[in-house]
């Protein structure tokens, strides 16, 4: 058995050697049938191997994307407005009314802001800021300062006609006084 195997091996080796001798240069892309025709073949049979392309990218694209989750129906809404059918009516959305950019208020916005420069200098912008409540013209402050100013302007009238409101105002001022002076600190980078 071994001798047969050994002889078989030797013969194969001989074939290999003969093959090597017969075709000293292995050419890529050339089928062995073509090479055999070019060079006369030996007595042993060699299978004809032809590499042929079966799959093309264009066909893959033509097939389209791979179908996955076959039979699964997505019952969720992924796009569009949420359905909300209450008695068959749609949700109330206010009618869009674009603002009039050229109404008188908007067309002449900023008029007289440079009256102290372009006028004779007797009037300042805060003197003509009629859209601002008179007690807030030229004023900036936190809530506590604003309430103090309000009380200074209105305590007479409020005492006569709105006493409860004046009491509430005083209470709030007192509460803010306690909070700002006893409960919080003034840092140099942040004042109340």
């Amino acid at each position: 058995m071994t001798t047969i195997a050994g002889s078989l091996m030797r013969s194969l080796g001989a074939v290999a050697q003969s093959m090597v001798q017969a075709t000293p240069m292995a050419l890529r892309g050339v089928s062995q049938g073509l090479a055999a025709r070019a060079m006369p073949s030996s007595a042993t049979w060699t299978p004809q191997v032809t590499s042929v392309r079966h799959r093309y990218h264009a066909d893959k694209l033509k097939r389209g994307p791979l179908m996955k989750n076959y039979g699964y129906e997505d019952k969720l809404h992924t796009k569009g407005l949420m359905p909300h059918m209450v008695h068959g009516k749609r949700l109330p959305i206010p009618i869009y009314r674009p603002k009039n950019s050229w109404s008188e208020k908007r067309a002449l916005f900023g008029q007289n802001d440079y009256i102290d420069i372009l006028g004779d200098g007797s009037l300042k912008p805060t003197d003509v800021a009629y859209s601002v409540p008179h007690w807030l013209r030229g004023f900036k402050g936190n809530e506590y300062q604003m309430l103090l100013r309000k009380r200074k302007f209105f305590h007479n009238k409020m005492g006569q006609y709105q006493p409860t409101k004046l009491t509430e105002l005083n209470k709030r001022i007192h509460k803010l006084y306690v909070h700002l002076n006893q409960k919080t600190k003034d840092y140099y980078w942040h004042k109340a």
Partner: protein
Amino acid sequence: MLDSSVPLILDEKFVNARNVVAAREAWVETLDTNTSDVGMITLHPDVFSVCPRMDIIHENVVWQRKYKMVSKAHTKTKPEVRGGGRKPWPQKGTGRARHSSIRSPLWVGGGVTHGPRAFTTQFYMLPLVTRIHGLTSTLSAKFAQDDLKIVESLQMASDEPGYIEKLCENREWGPSVLFVDDTDLMPRNITIATDTIQHMNLMPVYGLNVYSMLKHSTLVLTVGAVRRLEERILYHLNRPDLTKANATPFKKQN
């Protein structure tokens, strides 16, 4: 050899004045469809041909928007919300969290702790110099972009709105036009014509401002308005106490 009888005058024309800016010139027109240009006017370079500073223009626009703003947004704090005086359930015994009032900020419908409070103002004043430079920058930009038209006067032939609309269309004066005159009493015809047209507005010189100049495409100045503008702006730019006026913080009386 030099002739000794003729004095030796070596005259060299030095270019000393490197910073002199040439005065600008503009056509003077009329609000008359038949005539095109009446004459020419020279404009002072320190007012009308300044290099426009976009950051200063922006500062001015932001200031104009903010300094008159009053925010009336208001939320109620815990003691101001109606109700909430009683303890909702006993401190201990019920398995629930401990609460003392139904209007605490933790509760729905309760008070807001640090919300907006009543009248909040954003008042501040820009330095005088910044506002002057805002005006000059905007006027220069308008002039450079051909959006500044000089007109002899605001006298018009007809008081029809169609007349002035057609005039502006023929001369390609932008969709919105701002007419500026020296006085606040404008001629009859133009007042009636522009009364119904919302995007054509009349203004006196003292009402001129950066925001309006940017909002309206075309700025039409009368000759009187141009001279008044120049006089006022140059006065402020050259007044001896400008640094003091600029540095003095704005103080509102009472």
